[in-house]
Structure formats: structure tokens, C-alpha cells
């Protein structure tokens, strides 16, 4: 199996789909001639030419809507939103137009499109280029929302997203772009299926995107036998895998790269609590970012993001006391 960087896995997934399916087209800002600011579209213009691989003006609303329109007429557009925050100016086209097309055409129209966006903190991009913002799109019926965590999931999930007949929001953790991993190009991953990336029996961690790596790191350093689930899909999320795991371990910790309020982990905790009320060994908890913007300063940004030390501290507290621990910012009086 070849080892490739996450950004190469993404470019390879798109190229493989474009080779298989002539209706796949790609556009976005600086994705053609410049091959993408994160090199996630490397080689596409050269191989597939300027009809199928296009640079757009800085007009997210127009090109996101153009993807919707093109999808209704038989193409499968894959578009790139350079930073997730830039989707803010185009949200109408995805949430109010694209996600409603099937419904408002009485089932006659499909919108097979993928909106790729780089997300997350850790690289010093500051308050307007570091958020994950899954919750902008997770509450819109009609959309599917995915986030890979490594090269293999980037490759396999992106191929699944491009093949899917529904609009898919594909959130790429920017900090993982340069990371290498082995990729089996024959491995299929399904939308709506989580991955158990480490088996364990004492406690279940559910994570997403770059937090999967934090959860792995925490599990490796812990004296407990922790099971780590990479959720992969936020909508529709894999209730079956999560519930089966918590049934086995009796404990749930969700690790989220999101401000505490309104995060996807609340859904997981609510569902698990409702299913296993009274049977759990400890209260299900969420380890999140504080309810503040992403700070620029390197030391502060590192504190803002959940890390393995904080995850294990909270897990140890949970095991020792049986009560939900306070997050660091409460412990430190902020």
C-alpha cells in the first residue's frame, strides 16, 4: 500500500473519481493552475483540462450555487471552500437551495455535489480561519456531513462522498494535510459508518477529524483500556457502532474540536444517555474547546484545543470520582 499525505489522498480520490466518472468536475478558488493553496488538487488540471477543472473568482456564493445548478443537470461537482469560514457567504446556496432541491422538486431532482472545506485550528491562522463549524451545516436535513481524520479516511470517504447522490459537506482537518499514512485505494468506507480505530473495554472515546488523533494519543498514554471511535460522519451519525461500544464499556467521552455550546457531541451524549440511563458506570462527558474564538498566540491556541493530557486528566478524574470533571478553564477560574 502506498503511503501518502492526506492532501495527496484527497487529490488522488478526486482524480480516481474523475477517471471513472466523466460527470465529475472540480472548481474553486486557485484550485486549477495553482493546484490549491493546500495542494489538495495537485495534478488535476494537467490530467483533466480546463473544462473539468476550473479556477473561480472569489465568489463562494456564485460557485457554490453553480455547483447546485450543475448537479441538478447531471454533473457531479466537487467544489473547494478554501477555509470553512468562507462558506458563511455561501450558506444560502448550500443550506437553503441545494439541500432543499430534492424536497422542493417532489423528489425529482438529485444534487450530487461535494463541498470540500478545510477546517480547524492548530496552525496559527487566527480567529477567522481556524474554526470547524460543523454545526453550521449539521442541522440541515438534506445534507450529509463528513470529516476524515487520516489519509485512508480522506481517500475512502471522499470517494464515497463524490459517488453519493446527495449534497455532502466534506470537512478536512487542515492540520492533517501534511500527515502521511498508508492508503489502500480498494478500501471502501461508507457514509454513516464510524470506524473503531482502537479496541478497548474500559471506556469509549468518540472523536472526529484531528481529535481522533488526540484520542488515539490519549488512549496510548492511558493505563486504561480505551476504545477509540472515529465518527467519520456527523450526519447521519453511526448510532449503532457508538451504542454497541458504550454498551460494552459503560463509559462515554466525546472529544470535540468545537466551542462547548451547540457541538455535535451533545447529540451523541443525548442519545447514549437516553439509551443507557441508569446503566452507565459514569456520566457521559464532552471534552471540548472553551466558548471563545480561536486565539492566534501559539501557546493559547494549544490550550484552546483539546489535547491528550487534558483528555487523560478528565478521564482519570471521571474514573476516580464517578462525576463529570470540570474543564480546565473552569478549574482555573476563567
Amino acid at each position: 500500500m502506498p503511503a501518502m499525505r492526506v492532501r495527496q489522498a484527497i487529490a488522488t480520490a478526486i482524480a480516481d473519481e474523475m477517471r471513472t466518472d466523466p460527470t465529475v468536475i472540480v472548481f474553486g478558488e486557485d484550485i486549477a493552475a495553482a493546484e490549491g493553496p493546500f495542494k489538495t488538487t495537485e495534478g488535476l488540471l494537467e490530467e483533466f483540462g480546463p473544462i473539468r477543472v476550473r479556477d473561480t473568482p472569489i465568489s463562494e456564493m456564485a460557485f457554490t450555487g453553480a455547483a447546485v445548478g450543475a448537479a441538478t443537470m447531471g454533473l457531479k461537482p466537487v467544489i473547494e471552500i478554501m477555509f470553512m469560514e468562507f462558506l458563511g457567504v455561501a450558506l444560502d446556496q448550500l443550506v437553503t437551495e441545494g439541500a432543499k432541491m430534492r424536497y422542493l422538486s417532489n423528489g425529482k431532482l438529485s444534487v450530487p455535489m461535494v463541498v470540500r472545506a478545510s477546517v480547524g485550528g492548530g496552525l496559527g491562522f487566527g480567529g477567522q480561519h481556524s474554526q470547524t463549524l460543523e454545526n453550521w451545516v449539521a442541522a440541515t436535513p438534506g445534507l450529509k456531513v463528513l470529516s476524515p481524520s487520516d489519509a485512508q479516511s480522506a481517500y475512502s470517504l471522499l470517494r464515497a462522498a463524490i459517488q453519493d447522490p446527495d449534497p455532502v459537506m466534506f470537512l478536512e482537518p487542515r492540520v492533517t494535510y501534511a500527515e502521511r499514512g498508508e492508503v489502500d485505494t480498494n478500501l471502501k468506507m461508507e457514509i454513516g459508518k464510524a470506524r473503531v480505530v482502537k479496541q478497548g473495554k474500559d471506556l469509549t472515546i468518540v472523536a472526529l477529524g484531528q481529535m481522533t488523533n488526540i484520542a488515539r494519543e490519549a488512549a496510548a498514554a492511558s493505563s486504561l483500556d480505551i476504545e477509540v471511535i472515529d465518527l467519520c460522519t456527523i450526519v447521519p451519525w453511526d448510532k449503532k457502532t457508538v451504542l454497541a461500544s458504550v454498551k460494552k464499556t459503560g463509559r462515554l467521552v466525546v472529544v470535540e474540536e468545537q466551542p462547548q455550546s451547540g457541538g455535535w457531541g451533545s447529540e451523541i451524549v443525548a442519545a447514549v444517555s437516553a439509551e443507557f440511563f441508569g446503566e452507565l458506570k459514569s456520566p457521559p462527558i464532552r471534552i471540548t474547546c472553551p466558548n471563545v474564538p480561536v486565539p492566534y498566540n501559539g501557546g493559547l491556541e494549544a490550550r484552546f484545543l483539546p489535547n491528550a493530557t487534558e483528555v487523560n486528566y478528565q478521564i482519570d478524574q471521571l474514573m476516580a470520582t464517578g462525576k463529570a470533571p470540570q474543564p480546565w478553564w473552569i478549574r482555573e477560574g476563567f
Partner: protein
Amino acid sequence: MSKGLERRKAILSDPVAQFERAVEIREFETQVNALFASGTIRGTTHLCNGQEALAIGLASVLRTDDPVSATYRSHGIALALGLTTESAMAEIMGKATGCCGGLGGSMHLCDLELGLLPTSAIIGGGMPIAAGAALAFQVQGNDRVAVAIFGDGATNIGAFHETLNLAAIWKLPVVFICDNNVYAEYSRINLTTPIEDLHIRAESYAMPHFALDGMDIDVVREGIQSAVDRARSGGGPTFIEAKTYRFAGHSRADQALYRPEGELDSWKSRDPLLLLEERAKKSGKITDAQIADMKVRKAKEIEATVALCQNAPEPSAKTMFENIWSRKVSQ
């Protein structure tokens, strides 16, 4: 051939049929207004009185495989394209037999067989979608043309400018038609926009543009035909400003008391229905007596449509969970 396609075919060139369709649209809107006023229909509605010639002119020039992205004020466009009055009225009444199964309503009409994309209730929201449809045609290498029709108010929203720019640089086969009916919701266009001739905005996107008299169907047809021909032959997008006038308020809650005195009467002297009637008579194919009969007949037909739709079934609860994803997602 479906009833919708037959209805479309009927108005392609016959001036009598075109006049008849205009009468139908006006009667339809009269009934819709009455049904809202009496509380029979819920929500809101946006009437197209005064804009019928543009709707019919557009429908008579396009092919049925040329998609139209229109707005929440599209009862007339939908009927002109061929949507049946039953399908439209049932939708507005929220009935299962409506074009969107009763789940769309007055602002969300759709019939893909006739080229009517789901109408958008977001100002300017349909413009990028029309450009995207045109992008598909360009990539596929066929000769279809996409149309975005929108109001004067849309010329102040970002989607308008972004889409014109995108369509121009990609030379997309799309026609932009601004139905300038003088009012953007409750505001006269001059209060929100520093120019009177909105089509000149296309100049900055190096896009061919012109204004036309939207009350005169022959002028409308000639103008749109030239733009469609350009798009079909690879010449790229065109921007047309059709000067019309909104005879009704913005929505059912709006009495339009803000109009300058005399403005409505002055535009009504050029009511597209009057012009279409004159034109039909000039064709020699219909007499005054036949016109009088036709008007009575149309009014009765729409009344019968209303009665039919009132008795139509309500959508079942199950339908609420359908057509969201390609396959049902249970969560």
C-alpha cells in the same frame, strides 16, 4: 404528450392562445387572492398581475429542456410554461395533488418536464443555480440554455453580482432576465438603488445588455429570442431588463399604499392583458363576442379548478419524511 407539454405547445406562436393564457393567469391570481383573503389558503402569496406578457413571452421562446430558475412570484411563469392550473392551485392549497405534493406552497412551484426548476423564495437565490445549469450544458457540450428570472430587488444582492461575473468569465449559456416591476418588496426601486436603468449594471461585467418593454409580448419575445440565440450558439450570457409593473402589493399583507398617486393607473393603461387582447383581435382569429365568451369560460374554469382542489386529498404524514435524502435517513 402530457397536458403540461400540450399547454406549452399551445402558446408558442398563436396570439389568441397567448392572450387566453394571460386571461387564465389573471383569473388564477384573482382566485388565489380571494382564497388568501378568506383564509382558505395559509401562509403568504405574491401575485404577478401586470407581469403576464413577460411570463408568456419567455415561455413561448424557450424549449422545454431549457431550465428556468424563477422566484416566489412565479404563478404566472409556471402557468405560462405549461403547469396546469390544477397542479399549481393544489400546490398553493397544500394538497397532495400539487406539483410539490403540497409540501412547497405558493412560493415553491416546480415542473421539470416543462423546465421549471424549483422556484426560490430567496431574493437572487436562483441566479447561481441557473449559471450552474448553464455550466453543466457547457461541459456536456449540448445546446441547452438556462434562464434566471428575478426581480429588480435582486440586483442589489451579492448573488446577482457574483453570478453575472462568473457567467461572463465562463461565457455560460445563460440568460438573465430582470423583471423590473418597480418595487422591491415595499420599497420603490429608486429609494434603494442609485440608477434607474438596472441593465447597465451588466456593463461592468462586459455582458451584452438591454432594456425592453415588458408589457408588450412581441418586444419581449424578440428580445429574449436574441439572447437565447446568442447563448445557444456559444456567445455567452445576456442581461435583459424587462420594464414591467407590479399591479398588486408585495405579498398578501401589503396594500401598497406607498405608491405615488396616479402611478398604478398610468401603468394600467398599458396593462399587458389589454395589449394582448388588441393583438389577438388584430390577428383576425377572434372576435369581440368570442373574447367575451372566452373570458367567462376562463373564469368558470378557474372556479372549477378551485372547487376541484378544495376536494383534493391532503398529503399524508409519511410524505413529510420523503425526498429529503436520496434514501431515507432514520435518526
